[in-house]
């Protein structure tokens, strides 16, 4: 049996050498709805520039970044060969065996050409698992110039919103936005990971004086009548100010018109709000066919190259992660991206987090919003944070 297998494999090797380079089968790509047409154009350009791949059939399907990760995990074999996703899904995808590491010949280029945050975001341990596509998944403050007079101080922002009968939106029950307070106050929460997608350790100091300070700020913000938990500009009805990202820039411009403004997050209780800098990336599924894998690698590298990132910015305003593309004039003059760049100075590149972290953070946020923590002493708040920290530590793979 083993001999037969060896023979078959040898034959397969011979065959793959015989028709070396080039691939003409099917490749399926999942990208967000907004960039389907754009990706189609780029794929056509890729095929034109690389004649050995001209016979390849590429199917592009609109699957949002969140759905893409969930669908891939549910059915790896039926999923797309190339897919775009946001970095919070990376650990899950690697653990589920839905990502192959970046081809060695591309890894160096990716490392050199993209910003350091994006590069650290696509790595588990020392292994690079995806191609950075954008560096714009951060949040900052959009505000109505006619309502907010001083966007540098959160208390003044809230005061102005209250006075004008407008709302201040921030999704403090999300593990993503919540870190603005904790990281801003000087806390850390990161997980160590190994090359195969396991989280091996946690570095968390939420249960400290700084953590209590951050939690108290959150409680104070949640007590303001102007505060509304939320981060989707299109779902908000009465915006004075909102903590949101670049993806809502157009919605905000339409909503606020001439009063549209964006800047870094304000300070609160004497510290600057921090948070996550996030990234979108393109992943390649593990393949059983070497030629197809090479084709997927080449296509992924192309779709995340400097030129394509710039073109993507021009088409749908996704901020590039490529260092040269970031220096482009058009990119630098974008109001929302400028605000993000300003905020990113205070933000931490988002590393790898277990899926359970996000629900745990939502639970803490819901406790704050539900006023379960109002009137608690510092000791009691510290106990809550200790519980948070202990629970977060249990997510480490044993």
């Amino acid at each position: 049996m083993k001999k037969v297998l060896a023979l078959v494999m040898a034959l397969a090797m011979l065959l793959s050498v015989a028709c070396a380079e080039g691939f003409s089968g099917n490749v399926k790509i999942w990208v967000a709805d907004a960039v389907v047409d754009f990706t189609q154009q780029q794929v056509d350009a890729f095929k034109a520039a690389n004649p050995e791949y001209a016979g390849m059939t590429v199917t592009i399907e609109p699957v949002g970044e969140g759905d893409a990760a969930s669908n891939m995990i549910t059915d790896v074999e039926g999923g797309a060969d190339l897919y775009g996703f946001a970095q919070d899904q990376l650990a899950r995808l690697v653990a589920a065996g839905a990502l192959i590491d970046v081809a060695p010949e591309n890894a160096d280029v990716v490392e050199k050409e993209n910003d350091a945050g994006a590069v650290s975001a696509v790595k588990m341990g020392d292994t690079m698992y995806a191609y950075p596509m954008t560096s714009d998944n951060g949040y900052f403050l959009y505000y109505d110039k006619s309502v907010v007079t001083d966007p540098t101080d959160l208390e003044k922002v809230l005061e102005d919103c209250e006075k004008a009968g407008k709302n201040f939106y921030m999704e403090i029950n999300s593990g993503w936005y919540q870190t603005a307070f904790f990281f801003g106050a000087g806390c850390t929460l990161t997980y160590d990971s190994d090359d195969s997608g396991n989280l091996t350790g946690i570095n968390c100091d939420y249960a400290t004086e700084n953590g209590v300070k951050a939690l108290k700020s959150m409680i104070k913000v949640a007590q303001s009548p102007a505060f509304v938990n939320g981060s989707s500009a299109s779902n908000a009805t009465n915006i004075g100010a909102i903590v949101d990202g670049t993806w809502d820039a157009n919605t905000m411009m339409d909503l606020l018109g001439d009063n549209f403004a964006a800047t870094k997050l304000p300070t609160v209780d004497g510290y600057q709000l921090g948070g996550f800098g996030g990234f979108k990336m393109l992943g390649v599924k593990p393949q059983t066919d070497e030629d197809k894998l090479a084709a997927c690698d080449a296509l992924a590298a192309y779709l995340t190259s400097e030129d394509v990132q710039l073109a993507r910015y021009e088409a749908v305003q996704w901020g590039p992660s490529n260092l040269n593309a970031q220096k482009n004039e058009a990119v630098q003059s974008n109001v929302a991206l400028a605000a993000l760049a300003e905020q990113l100075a205070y933000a931490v590149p988002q590393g790898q987090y277990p899926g359970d972290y996000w629900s745990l953070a939502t639970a803490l946020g819901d406790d704050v919003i539900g006023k379960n923590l109002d009137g608690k002493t510092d000791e009691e708040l510290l106990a809550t944070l200790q519980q948070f920290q202990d629970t977060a530590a249990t997510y480490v793979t044993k």
Partner: protein
Amino acid sequence: MTDLEFLKLSKPQKIGYQFLQFLKKVPMAIISGIKKLFLGLWAVLVGLGHEIADVFSTFVHGDWKTRLSFLVMGFGNAARGQWLRGILFFLFQTVFNLYMVNFGISYLAKFNTLGTVETTRQGRVTVYGDNSFYILLYGILTICFVIAFIYTWRVNVKQNKLGQMYLKNGHRLKTGREDIRSFADEEFHKTLLALPVLGIFTFTILPIIFMILVAFTNFDYEHQPPSKLFTWVGWSNFQTLLSSGGANFGDTFRQVLFWTLLWAFFATFLNYFLGMFVAIMINRKGIKLKKMWRTILVMTIAIPQFVSLLYVSKMFAADGLINGVLMRWGWIKEPLPFWTDPTWARVTIIVINLWIGIPYLMLIATGILMNIPADLYESARMDGANAFQMYAKITLPYMLFVTGPYLLTSFTGNINNFNVIFLLSGGKPLSMNLAGNAGYTDLLITWLYKMTVNDTNYKLAAVIGILVFVVTAVINLVVYNLMPSVKNEEDFQ
């Protein structure tokens, strides 16, 4: 207690006495249930013993045709002239053998470990190892096939015994043509049911068995085919879910179960009584524009729940219409915590559900109310009964009698009422006091959904699925046997 003594008791005493009697019956009912179970099992064992004995005696008393049929299925049938049956039996045996050799055995052999070969990498190319998912699925399928084969083999043996006996007694055996004709005649039920039974097996029974077995594996986030293996872990998932202490799955499960039952109770009975109340109001003689009132209420049914519930959910949000208006009027200083406070959220959901549920009940009740003989009310009025007495003695018993089964199904339906909860609150608010991403308004069914879709925690989701079944089955059996429509079938005929 004699009847006379019972009649002397005051109303609360009577209820208390009856309740005590009910409680006294419970242990006996449980014991007799267990007894029935064991008797049933015993009967099955005895039946199996008879079958095996019959197989042996068939072999001992059988001629060479019969004996050869034990190895080559259908041989006896064919040798006795029943070619069609013989060929079908033989075909089945061939297909079964081919399936087992080429496919079944390999899955069955790995069924006890669910696979041992890990996925590996040859250079940059991935070589997938065993796929635990397929091993489990096809393992179950193979076991079912084996059972079907044993059953068919048994039928084959029995037919040989009968055929041999018939010929000995000078009877004639059915020909193939007669067999085919019988499927349109005395065997017509088999023709009709073949397709549905096959469908129910593939789309219902097989997935249910699969799901039940997943509860005994560690199929989750860290053990996902095709790149990772999962395996059997015994009862440990049940232990996780039923354990206690701290913010763990055990306490969260009890919390969610409590709210699920509370919700089902209120959603069913509040809707029922208020719906009936509205129907009675509209039915009253003095009310004008009856049709208009009914149309207005039925409008909520006409709008799809996906639209109306999502919209209402937005209306009650912190920056929604309701809070906005109340604040503008100066009635409240800050938004009411409709969706952020556990108790508020629960009450809000129950109240909004009234708005959806009452129209349905109103429609059902209207039809039944019109059916109650008017002379009952007339004679009651002559005897000097007031409106409430008439309601309690005539309307309610009649309604309960007719709608008892409906109440039960709607209670069960509400235990699994995914739409309302998911669209209104999504199970929120969450809390650090709850484990497994559960929220204070999560039903077991929405929690299960979150576990499978967001957390890929299939093992615990399967356990919850089994427990939901246990809960609904127990409630259904108990309540069904207490229902007037079952107990006193003739009352209203």
